[in-house]
């Protein structure tokens, strides 16, 4: 328990810092650097060339490549980038190289300050088994575990006997839920082990797995720790991150509703003991599983800044990145960190480029056309993307973290839900509705959160709660009216005549608008008596149109005035109102006009006589092969195969006289897409 710092304490001010990361965390780190007067260097991959973090840095170094392995995981290239720009420190952010002890060591060897814990501490905590041994040494409670090298039936029986059921199978080198399996029945164990091994080997290059008892309805509560080189080790209270989807956190908060002062102190002290034991320095997080009865079990230590660090910053008023840099510079933690205070309640949600549907969540890609929030006190947005950002497939699909800090949890939840509802995010599918659905759920508001929250409440149903059907229909009407205004404004003739004027009114204007998952048939009339509108045949009663321009529609529903902002991007119409929004596309009124001939149907181009048929049913032909020769006006016309394929039918024979347009031969194309009209 005597964690004395072995390295000499020398002050080494950082002048220029390279962020070995991308997106929001790169911007987050650079923001503090700017405040501290430290120059910044970004590194970026090819797809990230135009991203905000790369352009906002004082200097930026191209890493090339697109995948993480080709770019942000290239330790040598990053160290070289630091050398090339004269950066004297590297902040690894989270993910990528942040918990790679070799990288930390490479930095030190290159004489570059690594803004993170010592390489040894990273290495020690990087192995779950080693971490558990350390926890055991310093009396931090943990679940009994068993490493299973022997997968014999006897060994499995013994494990089940000792640990009980249910069991959790975990990858030793894992994280983020990968390589994890819950086993509720003995007979499923062998298969779960094998699957976990395969996944662990694939993901981490290490197929070591272990077993531990599985706690039902647990919470995920983690303690933020901070240590400096002067022997100070503190904890900055807890964060609760129980709401997870496939072990991926999406809502995080501090404080946790499950902790009282006593439990908080016990968990905090356990985390500090652990940090001292491994000679920790810098920011770290000790993760615990908290059982409903108040028992807590050590899970692992994350030797880096966490994604969810902002909630701690909000409640403590501390800048964790600043503390990291100060510690890395060899300075002692300030008094405010040594005697931290926990004020108010902060909740963070992760806004992902992920669409919630009945089938589950699916990643979305695209260009962010707009991302903006209302001004709102206590709201913090850490966004990786800006307008124009392209969200591709290579990296984590997180668009932004949105954090609300308020005196109480209820208020924070309300403020955050409001901010999300009002957010204008165009161009990319996202999980906003899911987040709002969670934040407004009575169970969440009652603090009844555990890691199975999203199993009890499927994302699709939560997202649906955030969406009001009547409000959606109104959005469709607003979009139709904005489209109407746009068309009227663009017309070259009769522009000042009332929209859709009819002296004989037989039918309303009709527009079909499609969203991701459905279409709305909007009918409207703008007559002397004002707006009459229908959606899907249902009349909207008591609606008055105050204004309709291409960008803004104001409707009064009953006595309530509702404003809609409309923005067109190509075919998409983005409609935002106070608490509802939609991305809609106007469907064309007419068909595209593409000729739908039977695929591969060849017809006579002119009347004539069939001289010969060169193929028979079943023959395989290559593109441009002769199929048939037609004689017309004393000229021979060769009918050739437009695509490679097989002769399906032959409709004529030699000597037949055929009219123009007569079906001659049908080919089935090789790839099934052959479509031709000779």
């Amino acid at each position, binding site marked *: 328990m005597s964690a004395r710092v072995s390295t000499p304490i020398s002050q080494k001010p950082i002048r220029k810092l390279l962020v070995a990361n991308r997106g929001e965390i790169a911007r987050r780190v650079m923001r503090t650097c700017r405040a501290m007067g430290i120059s910044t260097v970004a590194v970026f991959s090819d797809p990230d060339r135009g991203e905000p973090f790369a352009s906002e840095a004082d200097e930026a170094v191209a890493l090339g490549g697109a995948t993480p392995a080709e770019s942000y995981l290239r330790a040598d290239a990053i160290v070289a980038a630091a050398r090339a720009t004269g950066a004297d420190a590297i902040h690894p952010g989270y993910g990528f190289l942040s918990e790679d002890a070799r990288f930390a060591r490479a930095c030190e060897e290159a004489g570059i300050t690594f803004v993170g814990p010592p390489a040894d501490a990273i290495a020690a905590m990087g192995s779950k088994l080693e971490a558990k041994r350390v926890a055991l040494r310093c009396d931090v409670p943990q679940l009994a575990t068993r490493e299973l090298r022997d997968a014999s039936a006897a060994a499995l029986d013994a494990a089940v006997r000792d640990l009980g059921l249910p069991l959790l199978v975990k990858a030793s080198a894992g994280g983020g839920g990968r390589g994890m399996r819950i086993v509720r029945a003995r007979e499923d164990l062998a298969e779960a082990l094998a699957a976990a091994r395969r996944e662990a080997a694939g993901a981490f290059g290490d197929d070591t797995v272990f077993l531990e008892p599985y706690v039902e309805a647990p919470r995920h509560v983690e303690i933020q720790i901070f240590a400096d080189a002067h022997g100070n080790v503190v904890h900055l209270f807890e964060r609760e991150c129980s709401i997870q989807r496939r072990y991926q956190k999406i809502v995080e908060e501090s404080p946790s509703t499950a902790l009282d002062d006593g439990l908080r102190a016990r968990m905090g002290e356990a985390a500090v003991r652990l940090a001292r034991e491994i000679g920790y320095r810098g920011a770290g997080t000790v993760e615990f599983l908290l059982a409903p009865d108040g028992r807590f079990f050590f899970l692992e230590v994350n030797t880096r800044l966490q994604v969810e660090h902002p909630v701690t910053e909000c409640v403590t008023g501390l800048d964790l990145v600043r503390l990291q840099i100060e510690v890395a510079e060899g300075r002692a933690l300030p008094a405010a960190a040594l005697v931290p205070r926990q004020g108010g309640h902060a909740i963070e949600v992760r806004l992902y480029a992920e669409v919630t549907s009945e089938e589950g969540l699916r990643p979305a890609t695209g260009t962010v056309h707009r991302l903006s929030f209302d001004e709102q006190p206590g709201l913090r947005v850490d966004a990786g993307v800006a307008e124009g950002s392209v969200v591709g497939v290579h990296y984590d699909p997180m668009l932004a973290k949105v954090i609300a800090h308020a005196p109480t949890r209820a208020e924070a939840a309300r403020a955050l839900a409001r901010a999300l509802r009002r957010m204008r995010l165009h161009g990319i599918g996202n999980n906003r509705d899911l987040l709002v659905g969670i934040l407004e759920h009575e169970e969440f508001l009652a603090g009844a959160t555990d890691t199975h929250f999203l199993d009890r409440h499927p994302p699709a149903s939560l997202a649906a709660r955030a969406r009001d059907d009547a409000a959606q229909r109104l959005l469709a009407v607003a979009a139709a009216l904005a489209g109407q205004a746009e068309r009227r404004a663009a*017309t070259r003739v009769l522009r000042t005549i009332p929209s859709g004027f009819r002296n004989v009114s037989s039918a309303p204007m009709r527009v079909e608008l499609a969203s991701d998952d459905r279409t709305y048939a909007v009918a409207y009339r703008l007559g002397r008596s004002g707006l009459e509108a229908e959606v899907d045949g249902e009349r909207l009663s008591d609606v008055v149109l105050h204004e309709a321009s291409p960008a803004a529609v104001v409707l009064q529903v009953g006595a309530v005035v509702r404003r809609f902002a409309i923005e067109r991007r190509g075919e998409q119409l983005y409609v935002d109102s106070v608490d509802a929004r939609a991305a809609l596309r106007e469907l064309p009124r007419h068909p595209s006009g593409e000729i739908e001939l039977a695929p591969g149907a060849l017809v006579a181009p002119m009347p004539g006589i069939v001289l010969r048929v060169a193929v028979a049913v079943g023959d395989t032909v290559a593109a441009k092969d002769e199929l048939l020769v037609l004689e017309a006006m004393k000229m021979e016309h060769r009918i050739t195969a437009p695509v490679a394929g097989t002769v399906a039918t032959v409709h004529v024979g030699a000597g037949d006289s055929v009219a123009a347009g007569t079906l001659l031969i049908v080919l089935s194309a090789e790839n099934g897409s052959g479509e031709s009209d000779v």
Partner: protein
Amino acid sequence: MAILPTRVDRTADVFRENREGMLAKLAELDQQIALACAGGGAKYLKRHHDRGKLLPRERIELLLDQDAPFLELSPLAATGTDYVVGASVVTGIGVVSDVECVLIAHDPTVRGGATNPYGLKKALRAMDIARENRLPLINLVESGGADLPRQSEIFVPGGATFRNLTQLSALGIPTIALVFGNATAGGAYLPGLCDYTVLVKGQAKVFLGGPPLVKMATGEIADDEELGGAEMHARVSGVADHLALDERDCLRIGREIVARLHWRKRGPGPSARADEPLHDVEDLLGLASLDLRQPIDAREVIARLVDGSRFDEFKPLYGANLVTGWASIHGFPVGILANNVGILFSEEAEKATQFIQLANQSDVPLVFLQNTTGYMVGKAYEQRGIIKDGSKMINAVSNSGVPHLTLVMGSSYGAGNYGMCGRAYDPRFLFTWPNSKTAVMGPQQLAGVLSIVARQAAEAAGQTVDEDKDAALRKIVEDQIERESLAPFNSARLYDDGIIDPRDSRTVLGIALSACHSAEVRGTRGFGVFRM
């Protein structure tokens, strides 16, 4: 520029009575309109829809630019006759691919779209509008040709249909036929004579003689498709320029054809600020007299038709029964002649003549707002030369080269109808309000004149006048003339281009003016000899 004030008293009994009466008339018209839209009735509409086909107005809606206006013409043709209201054809001016066009659409739910005498008149009138205003013409064809039992009223005048099509083409006015169904016998020349044709696959049938006729004529056995199917015409005969997969596809192709015309209007287009009138158009309902013996305040009407209620009056102190002046409607400059009090004296006739000449000098279209009982009669006026002055006005109206638009607000009696550009004076468009009456004179006057003539004849023959018989005769005549003066009666006979809601007047005039500007807007520089 002067702005017209309003002094309308919305609480006055006459205003409220006019308004209620007008609303009642509009409701009656709406019933007639509903009949027109119902075509051949529910059974035939359903059958047509069940075949996957669209109604004429549905076709038109899909042909028009979304949200653009459509001014239907002569919607009440044939009202009160043996034929269906609307005469089984829909015509109008609409915007297709940003081009104002004249549309003529047969209604196949009424006797297979067969042409009746009123429908023929209506279609010919639409063609005249296309020609005079240089508007591309789109025919939405589905017609079995002439209604054979009525052929005597159709066959001879109907030939003009085809002649018109070729003449429009010769004038450089594009003609398009979108063929949705039968276009047989004479109807086959509709696509035959248009610049562009689109035939709907599996629906269009275009032939001079169908299978029975061919069998009778030559003994040949052939089916519909061989004789006139869309595929055959697209691939073999060349009658079809485009083969449409279905009706919507046909309408899409029609829109593309128009877009590719690269049409340019020849008029100067709107040039003034097109702001709304300052005063409420709703007031027109109360301003339009139901009892035509009550005057209609022309300036109150003008104040609700013209941009910003701006009106610069010409000769306001002379010939005060006729208001003349300059304004703009939807940005199009106009000269307005409006009867303020129904009678035209020599001063009014002279003022009108000069004003028409001025409009021609500056190429400004004229709008005639009619509420006239004719030129003044009587010894003093005859001696002052009312015939000469009326003749000048009729000469000026007849030979004026600028577009004329006529709106009948109230009475249109006697030579006043002529001088104020009645139907025979070929205004580009003539619309009427529901309260208006058009006749040689008012019913009471006409009956009275007949009575006086009869009395004179009786007296000359030495007979005594049977007062009861005279009163009964007067009543019969009065009722007949009253009925035949009414707007629906005249509209049924194509003596106007439609009865409009007074509140739509500004919009309708705006659409009409814009149509006029498709052609060159140019006044005449020479008139006939004025009798001085």
